Structure formats: C-alpha cells, structure tokens
C-alpha cells in the first residue's frame, strides 16, 4: 500500500475540515440552574482527506473522534468552523442537503448487532438506501443490485432472504458495508468498524475494506481507539486527545518517529504479542485520566498527564505545527 501516491499536493481534497468545533449543551447546574454546562467535544480540529485516501482517526473514549466523523456527515450540529466536500461548503447543511449528500458519504457503525434492524431481511436492509433515494422503484428492481452488493462484500447469494440473527458479527459487518456501498459513495466514515469483532475475523473485514477502496477509489475516515489496526489501512493518521488533534502525520512517521508525548504513550500502551519483545520494550505510562470535557483545563489538554509539562503548557494551548515533512504536532516542548 503506497499511501503517499494519494496525497500529492496538487490533488484537491475530497473532504476538508477547518477549525471544526462541536459543543454540546449538557443542561444547567446549580440550584437555580444558573450555570450552563457545555461539553467541549471537539475543538478547532482541521484536516483534509484526499480521494482514495484513508485517514485513521485514533483516540480514546471521549476524545471526540466519533463526533468529528458524525459532524462531517451532518449528523451533529457544528458550533464553529467549516466543512467542505469536493470544494463545496456543507457545514450547516439542511435536512434535504444532508439527504442529498448521503449519496456520496456514508457511515459504517461499530456494533454490527445494534446497527441492523433484527426485523428486516438482509435484502431490505441493503435495498433501503436505494429505495429512499429513488434509485429503484421497488424491492424487486433492487434484488439484482442487492445480489451484486452482497457478492462484492463476500456474502453468499442466498443471504438476502435471511434475517440478521442468522449471521455472525463479521458477516453482519459485511452487511453494514454493503448497505453503505449501495449508493456508490465516494467517502465512508467507518466508526470503529472492527472493534467489536474477534481477532481472526477482524482482518477479514479490514482486508475487505482495503479491496473495496482500491476497486472504487473510496476515501475513508477510519476511526479507532488504538494504534494496532489502523496501521494496516491508513495512509495518514490523526491522534485525538480530549477534543484536539495532537498529532497528524503520514502513517509510518506515527509509528517510527512519533513526536507528541501522548502519541508515544498510546503506542507504548498497546502490548506487543511477543513476550520477550514486550518485556524489553520501554514503557511510557501516562498517569491519571483524560480531563473532564465539561471543564477542560486552560492551555494544553494533556498537561495533567504529560511528563514534560512546563508553565507554557498551562498558559496557552499549542497548535499543530510542521515537524518533519508530512508530520505536524501540537506541543510546546517536543
């Protein structure tokens, strides 16, 4: 996989996110409800995704990675910043525009059990987007297309007549991918698509997504909570922490020359399945836990856990700056 081919500087990005912030209203606190509670889910996040490219978006729970993905798809309201798709601004797309856009951008969910309606047959699940968008008039017309999609994702042709409960987790995830592909989108947000699957099945789904990408030139925003799986599918990787992107770099730079202390801690936290190697590895544990998103600290979000913290980190939030070619990080001290 030669990812670099996909992001030549001349290419115009398929998706561009500029200074995206998403704040959620979490009600009011205090006896008279005088204090508004605001969850700072995503703050000032910027990145591009080029045609045919996969951007891995990695972060722990509550880091804002899913919210970022959903904001691009118009599923959550954007508080600040802009989102462009094929050069057109879609930041505050209305209901109709979101529906129109969903032809081009689709979502694959994490939980293959919760994301398929147990009362619908596979054929109805996969055909639904086709019917909603008027690509076909009725289910009979859709049958041929559904059969093609099921074959594409490696499911048996008779799968359409069955219900989701007849399938294993990996097969259900294939159904979810077939549904996402039905409208021939150009961009797919995959929100932890393999986290719920067993190791031996995980690779099947990741490989399928890679094959589909090279076949159709799809772009992915691949969301994950650790760095092990994304290495195989991503061309570039963005690391999120408490609503900020702390490092954004070409895939191999993240693994071979990480800059941000959080990236390094995250790499060190994933145990290597090889006892002598794992014992010998230098481990960077970062103590403590991520900050409360209702009340994030001023300055750098990682300051409370960072081994290199200085006064500057407490005073001002660092922004992403260029390090090596193809690598940007947000840190004052590294």
């Amino acid at each position: 996989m030669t990812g670099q081919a996909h992001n030549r500087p001349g290419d115009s990005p398929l998706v561009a996110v500029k200074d995206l912030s998403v704040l959620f209203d979490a009600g009011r606190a205090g006896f008279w409800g005088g204090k508004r509670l605001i969850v700072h889910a995503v703050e000032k996040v910027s990145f591009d995704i080029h045609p045919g490219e996969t951007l891995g978006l990695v972060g722990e729970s509550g880091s804002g990675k899913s919210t970022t993905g959903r904001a691009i798809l118009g599923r959550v309201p954007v508080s600040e910043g802009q989102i462009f798709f094929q050069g057109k601004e879609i930041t505050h797309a209305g209901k109709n525009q979101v529906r129109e856009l969903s032809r081009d951008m689709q979502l694959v969910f994490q939980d293959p059990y919760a994301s398929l309606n147990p009362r619908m047959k596979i054929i109805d699940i996969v055909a639904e987007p086709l019917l909603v968008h008027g690509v076909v008039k009725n289910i009979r017309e859709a049958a041929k297309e559904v059969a093609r999609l099921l074959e594409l994702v490696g499911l048996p042709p008779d799968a359409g007549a069955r219900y989701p409960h007849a399938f294993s987790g990996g097969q259900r995830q294939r159904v979810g991918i077939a549904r996402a592909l039905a409208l021939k989108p150009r961009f797919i947000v995959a929100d932890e698509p393999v986290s719920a699957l067993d190791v031996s099945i995980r690779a099947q789904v990741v490989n399928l997504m890679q094959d589909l990408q090279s076949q159709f030139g799809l772009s992915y925003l691949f969301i994950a909570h650790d760095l092990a799986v994304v290495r195989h599918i991503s061309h570039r990787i963005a690391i999120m922490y408490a609503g900020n992107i702390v490092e954004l770099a070409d895939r191999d730079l993240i693994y071979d020359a990480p800059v941000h202390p959080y990236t390094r801690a995250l790499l060190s936290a994933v145990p290597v399945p090889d006892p002598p190697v794992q014992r010998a590895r230098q481990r960077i544990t970062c103590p403590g836990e991520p900050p409360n998103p209702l009340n994030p600290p001023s300055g750098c979000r990682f300051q409370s856990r960072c081994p290199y913290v200085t006064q500057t980190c407490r005073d001002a939030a660092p922004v992403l700056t260029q390090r090596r070619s193809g690598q940007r990080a947000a840190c004052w001290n590294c």
Partner: protein
Amino acid sequence: MTASPKIPLLEARDLVVNFYTRGGVVQASRGVSFQVDYGQTLGIVGESGSGKSVAVQAVMGLIFTPGHIEGGDILFKGRSLLDPAGRKFVRQVRGKEIAMIFQDPMTSLNPVFTIGTQITEVLRHHMGMTKDQARHRAMGLLDMVDINAPEKRLKQYPHEMSGGMRQRVMIAMALACEPRLIIADEPTTALDVTIQAQILELLADLQQRLNVSVILITHDLGVVAQLCHRVAVMYAGRIVEVGDADQVFAAPVHPYTQGLIRATPRLDVVTERMVSIDGVPPDLISPPKGCAFFPRCDQAKKACSRMQALVELGDDRHVSCWCAAKENVR
C-alpha cells in the same frame, strides 16, 4: 495423580459444562483441563464463545441454570470444589482464597453502597474483623492499588469514579482476604488503552509482590505476552494448546494458535495486509465431531475428523492436533 509429588494450587480436570437453551444444548466447555501452580500467572486466551469464561466461572461456582457442570472435577490444593460433601471447604475457599476480578467494574460493584461499605463487608465476613479494623485495612488496600486519598475514596459511590478507578477498587476487593489465587476475567477489556496499561502494570506488580497465582482470561495476545508465564489457547470449548508463554509465542504448534498470532496486528512489524483465519468458529450446539478447528484449518488431513486429545510435547507443552502430534512424538 496420587503418585505426583507436587499438587498444583488449582487443577481442572476434563471439565464439561453444558447450557440447556431453547435452541439446544450449548456445549460451552467440552473437557477442559488446566492447572495453575503457586505464584504462577496462567493466561487463558480465546475468542468470544470459546468457553474461556465458562471454565473459570465453574471454578468460582458461578454456573447457574440453564448451565450445569456435567463432568470433570476442580481441585483446589488437591481438594474437590465440586464434591457436595465439601460444602464448607468450598465456602471458605471461594471469595477468600480464590478471588475474582470481573470485566465490567460498573456492573460488578453495587451502585447503592459506598466503596468503603463494599470492601469492609468482605473483610468482616471472611476475616472476622471489627468495623474499625476493616476500615483501616480497606484504606491500606486502596493505597496498595495506588488510589490516592483513600479516606475520601472510601466514602464515594461507584458512579463517582472513573472506569480505571473502579477497576482498581475491584482489585483491592479481590486482594482483601489475601487470596492464593486471583481470577481476572478480561479485566481491561472495558478500559481505554492508556488506562489498560496502568492496570496491567499494577496487576504485574501485585502478582510479584504478593506472590499470588493469577488466571487471566483475555482475548488479547498482547496482554498475555505482558503478564503471563503460561498460556492456554481455547477454541470451541476445548484447550488446543498450552505451554510456557515464551515458547508458545515463539513456536506455536497448533494451527489455530499460529493463525491467532499471525492475525493479531503488531505495532512493531509492518505488513501490507492483515492475515485472517477464513471462516467462523463452529456453533457449540452441534460442534464438529473431530477437531473443531478442522473446517478452518489449512493443514487439515483425514485424521482430523477424529478427536485428538492433548498430547505432551515435552517441557510441559501440550497440543491437541494430529499434525503436531505426529511430528513431535518421540
């Protein structure tokens, strides 16, 4: 067995556990045998539905209807935990000498009692401590699992703590009665990676300091590599390979173990394509007659349609596979 000079701390022999469901009889554990020595960490690794949790739930007496233990035995210090005549012994052992840490600390702590109440309850019941003694000891336990300000924490409810903190409390409770054996069932699966790293370090440190034995149930080979001396690989209700962790990782013999190690993504190795194991695990209502891995195995041969028991390969390494047995039998 009587001829053996050394009695292991815990031994499971040919454990059979069935669940009687509407869909049929689920054979969750189909003759599982393993043993844990004093001061040793045994990792039991397998994918969902492989029966790894059921095996240790049987040890703790946590198999409830529709599940039944229908064969085999579990011996703690050489005495049976399943023998109805030994009820009193069992009550003394479970919860005191054998403690358990569960996957989800939110559901395994009682939400309506403070942490302090829950830890002191264990101490007063099993150790016969007074209220003051128990409180004092509870503070010591929280300190042992690196929770700061233990006095304040004792007064808190589970919901006031983060997931990592709750798991530390669970570990403190497990340590309360100075157990000989701790069973940890996916202790870090619900946690974020950086928090997982903290908890794994803590477990490794406590295991060494207290010289306690640990059975660690996990689906993550990385976790096994970090913590375990020995590893048992389970597939479809049976142990397919067991041995010294370093040896199993360095030279896996069973094709399933080989596949699992290949399929686990590694941070330190660049591969262009992930390796998968084709197919899906079998249905345990009607498992295949012979080797359960036979339909997915790339080294399958005729003999595989018959069951192969665990064969010793030397160095306390056992494998249940016809191919492997043929190559290595001396």
